[in-house]
């Protein structure tokens, strides 16, 4: 039982540096874009960029890309349930103004 068999996939250092550079770029981009008035698109763009950065961190720094299916399902489940919390709560807040009492 050699130790080689148990060693996990080792990612080259250059990949890590590449991811780092990409993250720095997107950070700069999000700051730059925030100075441009895009109204409702500002928040969308900011969240899209943040999600790209987050995905890179999770996939490569946290090795999720190379992890088991179970781990991947676990992470997706967490994001899904957080989404449920946000989305179902918003069904209340977004629709509160819809119904007006006809008696008033």
């Amino acid at each position, binding site marked *: 039982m050699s130790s080689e068999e148990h060693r996990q996939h080792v990612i080259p250092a250059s990949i890590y540096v590449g991811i780092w550079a990409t993250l720095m770029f997107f950070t700069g981009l999000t700051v730059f874009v925030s100075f441009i008035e895009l109204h409702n698109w500002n928040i969308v763009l900011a969240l899209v960029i943040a999600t790209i950065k987050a995905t890179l961190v999770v996939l490569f720094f946290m090795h999720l890309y190379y992890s088991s299916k*179970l781990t991947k399902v676990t992470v997706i*489940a*967490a994001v899904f*349930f957080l989404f*449920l*919390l946000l989305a*179902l*709560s918003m*069904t*209340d*807040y977004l*629709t*509160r103004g*819809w*119904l007006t009492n006809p008696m008033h």
Partner: protein
Amino acid sequence: MATAVQTVERETYLNNGYGLKSWLLTKDHKRIAILYLISITGMFFVGGFFAMLIRLELLTPAGDLVSSDTYNKLFTMHGISMIFFFLIPSVPAVLGNFCIPLMVGAKDLAFPRLNLATWYIFNIGAAFALVSMIWGGVDTGWTFYTPFSTTYSNTHVVGTALGVFIAGFASIFTGLNFIVTIHRMRAPGMTWTRLPLFCWSNYAASIIMVLGTPVIAITILLVALERLLHIGVFNPALGGDPLLFQHLFWFYSHPAVYIMILPGMGVISEIVTCFARKRVFGYEFVALASIAIAVLGFLVWAHHMFVAGISVYAALVFSLLSYLVAIPSAVKIFNWTATLYKGSIRYDTPMLYAFGFIGLFTIGGLTGVFLASLGVDVHVTDTYFVVAHFHYVMVGGMVLAYMAGLHFWWPKITGKMYPEGWAKLSALFVFVGFNLTFFPQFILGYMGMPRRYHAYPPEFQVLNVLSTAGASVLAVGYVLPMIYFMWSLRYGEDAGPNPWNAVGLEWMTPSPPPTHNFDETPVVTWEAYDYEHQPEQEVPVGH
């Protein structure tokens, strides 16, 4: 009659090391289960004490035993003790901790030291709550609704909230431990479809523990921060929305009821199959129903807020989803009943409790469906109808399941049998006392008696007196097992490895099991609940 020259006492987890330190620093999941048993039994009687005072007050229509402020504290502390410090940990932390490693064929849970840590965390949380109760109590309701809890209440909200916050981490880490154990520590041959349904149920409950509890943790923390530091997001004076608190609170607290009931359902699966000597009907459906309950349970929380001021459209969505969540529960009830059909039924105490569960949980569950209907809910919300509903599922369901499990696994845990006659009598007291306590409350609620009031119109007195009488009978049913279980430790008959002739890895170890559970890692080649191939033997324990 030969006498042995020397008796070598077999090593069990109970005699492997004596003294306080060997228990307080144990990593053995079986000892930790017993530690939890002691803690939660204590908290159960704390909650029961408050229940007793509530029922005494409600004997008469006038609010004459305690003031309304004190009454507010009584039902608050009853709820907090029972929900957070008894019901949520009961089956997982006691029976789950003890049985799951045995059932999957492992030597221990995945993280034994974390397991012990959770017991300490639980006790620290309980201490915070108890000190707050003794110091003057808390009167916000177990639901801690804002802005009363954050701004206007003059009671020990922070201490209690912190107690609940801390205890939540015990729940989170127990769930985490169970999920990892069931995924990673199964013995060779123990595939997912051979797992006992008790494991499936605890797995589903653990998913909820891991995903839901952190949300109430942050919410309760925000309440404490708002009281202490005025970091307030719930303060209406600032534009805060009290309903946001309710959304965040119920996002956990509704799935929490499934944390409570799912492990109980797992116990019932084990017992029904053993005492009908038949494989559970539709094993895969029962297993998947557990997962479905866990997932769907997260989609329904705002049915607690139908009259709170949420939008009607949101209420419609949540009402529809609440109907859906009843379906997998109904599937389980149907499958257990089908398991009984043409089974060879034995009426030992665990089975009596299981019968009680099936009937009472059905009533409680159906009344839940009534409450999911918007029209009905507007009429009965905040009345005793709701109180009766949740006590039917929590006590008639969950507590009966816990009692069933305690009786079923007691011989395995202690190596002793409890006295069957007394046990059957206690089960009768519990069943009769429970129904006498809570059935009148359905009627009271429908007639309009509000919950959380210490005074009521005189026409409701007869039903309230019946309810209090029932509570006294129920109390006897709770105290008797305490006595005979303790009695059995010294005087009970030796149980042997498998007194029920059940199928399952835990029954293949001695009673009590050795510390390391299995001398050799078992290799599983048989299906779950393989009762067809289990020879029917005379049950060796006399009654």
